């Protein structure tokens, strides 16, 4: 084929230009370390980079959600430990106050200790997190959650909702517990019912430990009776039972439930419950059994305090024992409730840690996926670079060699 001298030069130059541009691109890859500098370098890869970057950003976001949740939950768990310690102290104070050898003065000073316990508990209940938000206010933000009233009782002003944190795609975890569930809505008595001696009792009857022994029988009897039983004693210790409406409670055979109590029998049982008793009832004394009662921790402490402060005066020893027995039961329930919350919080912290570990190992996986899509393989890029520069050099050398070839050189 005939070669046009002009076109031959043009093409040699064009070849060198395109080699130079390829070389520049490789050089750019080596210097940025990326094989995708603009989307057209690898369109599907560029979209992958977007989605991997997004996943990494999500991981970061979830991880910081986890960290925030962890901080809040750690504050909660340490606060709850302090509360447990405080309640343990209240329990031992109450038990010591029931010692028969205690003087009224001693009891009054124990009551003073319990007032301190109550005040400190109030402070714990109003603990704030690192952002200054109350830990136990639910999702309310405008009021202090626990406020003490003039009579010493405490009102909850928060709501019952839980704060959540987003720790995964569609995965939320509570980062707190509403104060109502921790301090307020605590089952009274043994958790199922409260058996309390009538306030007008004149005998020495003391209600001791009591429990549900047959949950099925208890449940059906409880709803049939409207949630309340009243046990009445006559002078010879015979007892009978009436329900919330004052009607006698019958057994399964239709006969009125009843029996005879003496201080030797120690307890009376019916309808799946067993009530421990001691002392002797006077005629007309009653024991009331109320189902599903709730009592807040502060109320429990206040009742103890009131009973102890009244000891030796308005409160008889029997009344004191009865009150303290009931409130100790409630204190047990409070401890149980707080313990439950602690277990839940621990479970959440555990889940957070697991998620966090998962995200950090996923992060490594995604980073390596990202780097395999986006980053240039340094070895191949550099060998490419030297290959391309060698080719360009060869083109330049051939051009130099060919340009000197002309017939005119040999004519004169």
């Amino acid at each position: 084929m005939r070669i046009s001298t002009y076109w031959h030069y043009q093409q040699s130059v064009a070849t060198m230009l395109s080699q130079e541009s390829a070389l520049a691109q490789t050089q750019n890859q080596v210097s940025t370390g990326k094989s995708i500098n603009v989307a057209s370098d690898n369109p599907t890869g560029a979209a992958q980079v977007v989605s991997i970057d997004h996943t990494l950003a999500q991981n970061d976001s979830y991880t910081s959600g986890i960290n925030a949740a962890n901080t809040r939950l750690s504050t909660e768990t340490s606060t709850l430990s302090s509360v447990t310690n405080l309640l343990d102290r209240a329990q031992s104070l109450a038990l010591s106050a029931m010692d028969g050898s205690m003087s009224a003065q001693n009891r009054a000073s124990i009551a003073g200790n319990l007032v301190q316990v109550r005040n400190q508990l109030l402070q714990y209940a109003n603990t704030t997190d690192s952002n200054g938000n109350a830990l136990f206010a639910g999702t309310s933000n405008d009021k202090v959650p626990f406020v003490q009233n003039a009579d010493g009782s405490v009102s909850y002003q928060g709501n019952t909702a839980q704060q959540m944190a987003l720790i995964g795609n569609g995965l939320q975890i509570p980062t707190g517990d509403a104060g109502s569930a921790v301090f307020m809505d605590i089952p009274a008595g043994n958790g199922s019912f409260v058996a309390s001696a009538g306030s007008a009792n004149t005998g020495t009857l003391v209600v001791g430990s009591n429990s549900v022994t047959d949950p099925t029988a208890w449940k059906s009897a409880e709803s049939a009776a409207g949630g309340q039983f009243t046990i009445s004693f006559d002078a010879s210790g015979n007892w009978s039972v009436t329900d919330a409406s004052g009607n006698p409670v019958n057994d399964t055979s239709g006969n009125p439930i009843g029996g005879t109590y003496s201080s030797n029998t120690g307890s009376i049982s019916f309808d799946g419950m067993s009530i421990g008793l001691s002392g002797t009832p006077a005629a007309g004394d009653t024991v009331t059994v109320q189902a599903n009662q709730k009592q807040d921790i502060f109320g429990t402490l206040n009742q103890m305090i009131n009973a102890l402060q009244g000891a030796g005066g308005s409160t008889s020893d029997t009344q004191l024992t009865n009150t303290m027995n009931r409130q100790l039961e409630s204190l047990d329930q409070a401890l149980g409730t707080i313990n439950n919350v602690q277990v839940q919080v621990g479970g959440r912290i555990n889940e957070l840690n697991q998620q966090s570990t998962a995200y950090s190992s996923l992060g490594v996986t995604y980073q390596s996926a990202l780097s395999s899509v986006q980053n240039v393989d340094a070895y191949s890029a550099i060998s490419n670079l030297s290959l391309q520069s060698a080719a360009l050099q060869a083109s330049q050398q051939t051009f130099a060699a060919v340009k000197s070839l002309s017939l005119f050189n040999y004519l004169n």
Partner: protein
Amino acid sequence: MSNMLAIGTSGLNAAQLALNTISNNISNASTPGYSRESTVQVEQVGATTGNLTIGGGVNVTAVQRAYNQFLSTAMWSSNSGLQGATTYNDLATTLNSTLSSSGNLQTSLDNFYTSFSTLAGSADSGSNRQAVLGSASSLVANFNTLAQQFQQQQGSINTQVAQTVDSINTTAASIARLNQQIVQAGAGGSAANALLDQRDTLVNTLSGYLGVSTSFNTDGSINVFTNSGQSLVSGSNAYAMSTGANAYNATTTDVMDNTGTDITGKLSGGTLGALLTYRSNVLVPAQNQLGLAAVGLASSVNAQQAQGLDLNGQQGGAMFSVPEPGVSASAANQGTATVGASISDPSALTGSDYVLSYNGSQWKLATSAGQSVALTTNPNGTLSAAGLTFNVSGTAQAGDSYKIEPTRNAASGISLSMTDPNGIAAAAALTANPASGNTGSAALASIKVTDSTNPNLLSGATVSFPTAGSYQVTNSSGTVLASGSYGSGQAIGANGWSLTLTGTPAAGDSFAVAANTAGLADNSNALSLAALSNQGVLNGGKTSIIDAYANLTTQIGDAGSQAQSDLTVQTALNNQAVSSQQSVAGVNLDQEASNMVQYQQAYQAAAHIISTAQALFSSLLSAIGA
């Protein structure tokens, strides 16, 4: 001897002419479009002397240019391809670097969604709220910047279209003028090699601007047509094209033929073809896709906002505003109808533009590519299709049409309409509290907003259970809003909310549903806003905003990489075509050098003939003289 002198002179002349031609070839060796020329020598018929006929020397009959019409035509058409591919590649490369240098939308989007997660950590923190607005504002800026870059490219394409059409007109006029000169020169008998070369060069230039076809007239003139048959040059006449505004959109420059008919859709090849194809196949879809992401973002965030309560205890207001779909009436419309368009379902939107036209009895909708789309007539008289609702008023005439651009300007027009950080609706809108006397085990599982536009959404209601198996919802004035039988886990709805309970209610239990104004530190709506980052909001709920951006990246990247490979192919094709053409028409200096030697020797030999003739003549004279 006189014969010999004449023959020798003819040889000298021929060699002289050949050497001149060779000199011209060498001088023009680097002239683009120059065709190598050579002399055509013919033996001169001599006089017959007796029975002998001796030739009368050499005659140069023509100076011919090396030329092959097929090769030239192939070169022209490959030049169309090459210039088109170059323009397309330049535009696509610009778009790709625009995309990578105008800030990363994915990062902005993730920062925006993450700011809601951070807000959820402390929903009433003023600094967290300010941070959400800050990231929202940089997200909006990112959309705007990218969209403006796209718009700038639209503007630069408009300018280039106008410039290219000008160049086409100038070139076509020059070709017509050269045609005329060639016809005149041809009539005078001399072959107008230089004029032909010039004209071929201009045709080559013209095919670089636009895909053309050519035909030759017997008088040597050439006719040039566009690929679709519009005449640009016919003999000595040139037909100028012109540019003007698109019938629907004054900001888009279209191309008209000399009668004023819009021929934009018919042009292909060359720079102009590439500009127009790129505009409709790459740039407009990219603008629409980006706009789609902006609409999706605004509608999903605004909808979620409306499902929550802001820090002022009000239902959350819109955070972003996007322009309504663009509606442009055709300049040719006769009727008085006005068409309004609004987005009714973002998840049904596509990246297409549409044309809404009236045929005298009914309205029709088609994509701008011509595919028809079924329109639904709504009870209130509006028309709906593809996530859009059209509101037509006034009277249309048959043939009237309107261009609908649902998302074209959404990305450039998206703005942050929220200025008060307290306006971020982080809290759930509603709360449901059990009455204190409830005896059943029913507890709240969830309360959700199902219709955020319900005017009574926050006005409160009481859900009560007259019996364990039935419910009723009453408002504050005692009006029963809903009632029915109740089964465990069943959702109860009224006033735009839906309530689900766990456990079993007892007869007489009730729940009070109210605005969550007592729970403004609640973060559940902030978490829902953060969760939008992975939520499909476009394309029937399958595509999240990030996905839409990833799709846009692929779309633009594909355009760029295809343009690159197309340019490589077209460059190779053009190289081949030019090499073939140059192998015929190009000047090879070695060949010219050897020819020069050849004709130099021919000249010297012819000179020897004359000197021999002179010697013969002298020897004859001296013989006679002696």
